[in-house]
């Protein structure tokens, strides 16, 4: 068994609405796995099932080989969860917010005291450990939530949109902390920010209407859709003449002219050599391939813009 998380035809139905529709997913141990999808795609439902907060309507899900439906308590010993909501206890100090889950995990005082010291240090909150979370900035509160999820040294960390509502600087700082956790730990992340998934995840799944529609690394996903590539070619002269020639090529979908710049959309990215044959004799000043972003892939697959 080399997987940390596995779902087999998992479905969740609310009345007539299918939030998850026979979803199969495998997350390798030690990876940072990103789950992308528009609002209502089923991301949070899947996290709630995997973290034992909810039972699936049908199908099975396993965490380190344990069934989430029948072995909930054992599963919860292995996981840490950062939920979308700020669920910090405002009546407890930062340190007490970490002590409570440690006690809920039945950790020995000597063990959790040291672990909490380490986590406060890691999250740069040691000097604020006796303060109440209400006095913290949004970024500090999020760091404390992440620290709380790490108290039991989980094998799998679930992060449900961990940076929503944070400013870009704080978001990047949190990425730094998440990156520092990689090693034996598997991280399962849902996010609205494609940049976040691109920066952090080595595997990305895109789901929509409760179904898996793409799976792979960021590069693999981009390559899969790289059939349509756009090249920008700057010519010194005869732009219109070459544009006409290119339009007649079968592998060219679209040609746009902007002064001396030709933007050519090709059906296949590797049709560029054929294109360059047509451009023989042209005074080519510059050629560049417009890089596809993960956002292009996301929009192409879901048909929806990313909402932050």
């Amino acid at each position, binding site marked *: 068994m080399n997987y940390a998380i596995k779902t087999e035809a998992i479905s969740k139905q609310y009345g007539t609405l299918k939030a998850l529709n026979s979803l199969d997913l495998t997350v390798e141990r030690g990876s940072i796995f990103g789950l992308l999808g528009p609002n209502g795609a089923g991301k949070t439902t899947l996290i709630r099932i995997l973290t*034992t907060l909810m039972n699936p309507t049908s199908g099975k899900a396993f965490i380190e080989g344990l069934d989430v439906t029948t072995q909930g308590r054992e599963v919860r010993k292995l*996981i840490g969860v950062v*939920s979308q*909501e700020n669920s910090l206890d*405002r*009546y407890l100090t930062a340190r007490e917010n970490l002590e409570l*889950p440690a006690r809920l995990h039945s950790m020995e005082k000597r063990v959790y005291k040291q672990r909490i010291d380490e986590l406060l240090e890691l999250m740069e909150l040691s000097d604020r450990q006796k303060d109440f979370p209400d006095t913290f900035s949004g970024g500090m509160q999020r760091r404390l939530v992440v620290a709380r999820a790490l108290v039991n040294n989980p094998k799998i960390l679930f992060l449900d949109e961990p940076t929503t509502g944070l400013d870009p600087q704080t978001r990047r700082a949190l990425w730094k902390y998440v990156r520092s956790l990689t090693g034996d730990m598997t991280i399962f992340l849902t996010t609205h920010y494609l940049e976040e998934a691109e920066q952090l995840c080595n595997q990305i799944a895109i789901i929509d209407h409760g179904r898996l529609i793409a799976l792979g690394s960021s590069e693999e996903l981009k390559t899969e859709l790289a059939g349509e590539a756009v090249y920008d070619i700057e010519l010194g002269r005869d732009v219109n003449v070459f544009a006409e020639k290119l339009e007649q090529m079968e592998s060219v979908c679209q040609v746009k002219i902007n002064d001396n710049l030709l933007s050519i959309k090709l059906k296949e990215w590797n049709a560029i050599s054929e294109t360059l044959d047509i451009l023989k004799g042209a005074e080519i000043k510059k050629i560049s391939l417009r890089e596809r972003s993960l956002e292009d892939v996301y929009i192409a697959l879901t048909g929806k813009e990313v909402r932050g």
Partner: protein
Amino acid sequence: MNVKGTVAIWYRDMLVLKRSIWSEMIAVIATPLTFYLAFGVGMRRYIGLVDGISYSLFIAPGLITMTAVLAAYNESVWSLWFHRRVQFTIESYRVTPVTVSEIVIAKIFSGFSHGLIKGLMVAITIFIITPFKFEPLNLLLYILFLIPGSAIFTCIGVIGGTMLDKPETIGRVEAVFIMPLIFMSGLFFPLSSYPANVIPIISWLPTTALFEGSRQALVHGNFIFPFVLNLYITAIILFTAAVLTFRRRLTE
């Protein structure tokens, strides 16, 4: 059962109570003390003796009981609602190895502890400012009523805090259901004031068993067994109902 988890949640609630104990004490004592001064002292001369005792002594046990059960109810209903709907801490407990049943049992114990502590505060205040002296045995008998009474109202609070999503609905339930149950169960007037045909029905109410039974125990040292039995059976039924309601709601 993970007793450590249940104790950890109960300990958290007690830690929070300890931090706010002085400010809470003022609020907790103010209401029963106002009732005591207005009715027990202010109207004493006009009312005279009730069931053979002064009116101030007649209402004193009920005021202590009312404080305890209302504290138990309020702690449970608002704590459950707040932790479930506002602070989402219940959810953060649920992703640890504790089970939903262990969480609700911790919350029931917290409400119960609040009730007993606050009831005790009012009792001490009333004992200090009044000339009443109660026999130690009477106090022990009284506690036998206070324990299931606090448990009953804690469980009602847990059910309310689990089922009700809007704070205004919680307020309405208290105004329409909880307060009338307390006030109509012999807190301020003897049961003999009711029409004869209503008394058998009223006597079966757990709140009557609580207020009438606790008064008989504290003032006269009478231990009315059917009342105690009624209270403990009701407490067990409501405890089961609270655990099942919480479990069902949270796993929906």
